[in-house]
């Protein structure tokens, strides 16, 4: 960092400007959730609206928001559970064993992250239609898990590599089996990595839009797609309901991210950047 007061002022100004650019839309969005409908789309925008939570009761009556919220919770947590059950053993295998094809398997898993969702949307739609799973949270759960499995495997693998071999060797000398070592030594020691992977997978699943749009058609709406349907006839798009649902998803995400904030960069890069 260069010294000098001119620079330090310029620096503070720049950071503040970007901070405001991040914050002001969020504050405006929050005010949208709290204002009556006639103050949302006005001839001129209203920056200081009448704050009221009266409209909330109406929104709550009009749409089964709790139902949508529970759909999100079930689909997201189920998908994270699938990711962990499949991903932890896979990560362990990739991190700890030498065998033929290990690199190829690891890179195959990683490359599924590169798939464009739109390119597989049509086959996925027909697959779930054939299975009778369209418009169910189960289909969402399966898709979210597939989407996040690569991330989960690679994040956890990166944390497992960091565990010194000596600890396992000692346990092995004492006659512990490989699965036993995984369960009582490796998993507890890389718990931060597992939690990081779970949080990031949960947030990505919560955000998913394209697959959700084609799978869910009413009953299975989670929050991410439910809000795209808050429009009614003459009312047009009902922005305060959208804003309300947006914050309903925002706060859990915020809590989760604060929980893993020191591992965030490592999680977002699938384990490639430590620190």
């Amino acid at each position, binding site marked *: 960092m260069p010294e000098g007061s001119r620079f330090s002022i310029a620096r503070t100004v720049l950071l503040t400007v970007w901070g405001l650019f991040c*914050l002001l839309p969020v504050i405006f*969005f929050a005010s949208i959730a709290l204002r009556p409908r006639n103050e949302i789309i006005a001839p001129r925008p209203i920056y200081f609206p009448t704050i009221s939570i009266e409209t909330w009761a109406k929104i709550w009556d009009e749409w089964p928001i709790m139902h949508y919220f529970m759909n999100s919770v079930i689909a997201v947590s189920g998908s994270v559970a699938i990711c962990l059950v499949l991903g932890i053993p896979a990560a362990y295998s990739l991190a700890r064993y030498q065998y033929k094809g290990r690199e190829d398997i690891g890179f195959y898993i990683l490359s599924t992250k590169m798939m464009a969702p739109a390119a597989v949307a049509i086959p996925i739609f027909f697959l779930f239609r054939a299975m009778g799973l369209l418009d169910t949270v189960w289909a969402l759960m399966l898709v979210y898990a597939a989407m996040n499995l690569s991330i989960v495997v690679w994040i956890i693998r*990166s944390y497992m590599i960091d565990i010194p071999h000596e600890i396992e060797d000692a346990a092995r000398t004492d006659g512990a089996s490989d699965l036993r070592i995984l369960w009582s030594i490796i998993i507890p020691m890389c718990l931060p990595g597992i939690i990081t992977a779970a949080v990031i997978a949960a947030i990505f699943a919560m955000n998913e839009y394209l697959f959700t749009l084609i799978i869910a058609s009413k009953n299975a709406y989670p929050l991410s797609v439910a809000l795209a349907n808050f429009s009614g006839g003459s009312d047009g798009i009902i922005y305060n309901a959208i804003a309300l649902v947006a914050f309903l998803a925002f706060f859990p995400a915020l809590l989760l991210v604060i929980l893993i904030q020191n591992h965030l960069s490592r999680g977002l890069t699938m384990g490639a950047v430590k620190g």
Partner: protein
Amino acid sequence: MTDAVLPTPALRMARRRSPFRRKAFPYLLVAPAVVYLLAITLYPGIFALWRSFYQGRFKLEFVGFQNYASLFGDEAFWHSLYNTLVIGGVTLAVEFAIAMTLAALVYRDPFVRGWRIIFLLPMLFMPSAVAYLWKLLFNDGRVISDLLIRVGLADSNIDFMGSSWLARGVLVVTDVWQWTPFLFIIFVAALQGQDKEIEEAARLDGARWGQIFFSISLPLMRPVIAIALVLRGIDILTMFASPHIITQGAPAGDTETVSYFIYRTGFKSFEFGYASAASVVVLILTVVLAQSFVRRFFRSGRE
């Protein structure tokens, strides 16, 4: 005599488990994940390929390569590829420039945690919600126009959906607002992870801050930058929520991304064969890209 030899741990292990089981064990651990992913990648690939040779919604009619022929002759498809690259390229460049500047300004700041929480807030909203937020700000609520009029940069309401470059700009701004923090967080972590002493030494040798940053810190960050840009690039190239919610391709298809093209032909016009042909093309492109990028940049994490 043999009884006198105490079995070493290694011997005990070898006795307990047959060589075959020991060899198969790591494969068994990784197999469930691989099978699951094959079901969701290989199957769709094969299905899309098969479906791309047929036309019709209910009664399928074999048409050979006709879908591909019309796809490659379809200006809308090429246009969507062009839009994806233009919108994506600009978005990625802007996000990179801002994220790197902010990271460089903040990484030795004692309040770096505070800045980081503020900067990452947009990332925590669902992209569909963010799309509606900016649709409201730019279009339905006319907030941006109003602000521009107030500071004297515009005379009247701007119709952001009326011009292709403005509409593309809206998509860029929406993505930049939400996802710049993704790169910022990674860059800050990478900069913080670098050895302070190298910077100190360079400073004692009389190097200016700019020299240190551009000749030492930045080159050291190259692998991190590559990974971050690849990950962000993939997401940008598959951008879907904001075109679907904000522009729906308007005006005249100038904001239609490839993802939106497939969605529109498949799920709006129900030309599944045609959309499958586009899917196959995109799948091939992504497989090629994935092969070249993944192996190149993800080596660093290896044992």
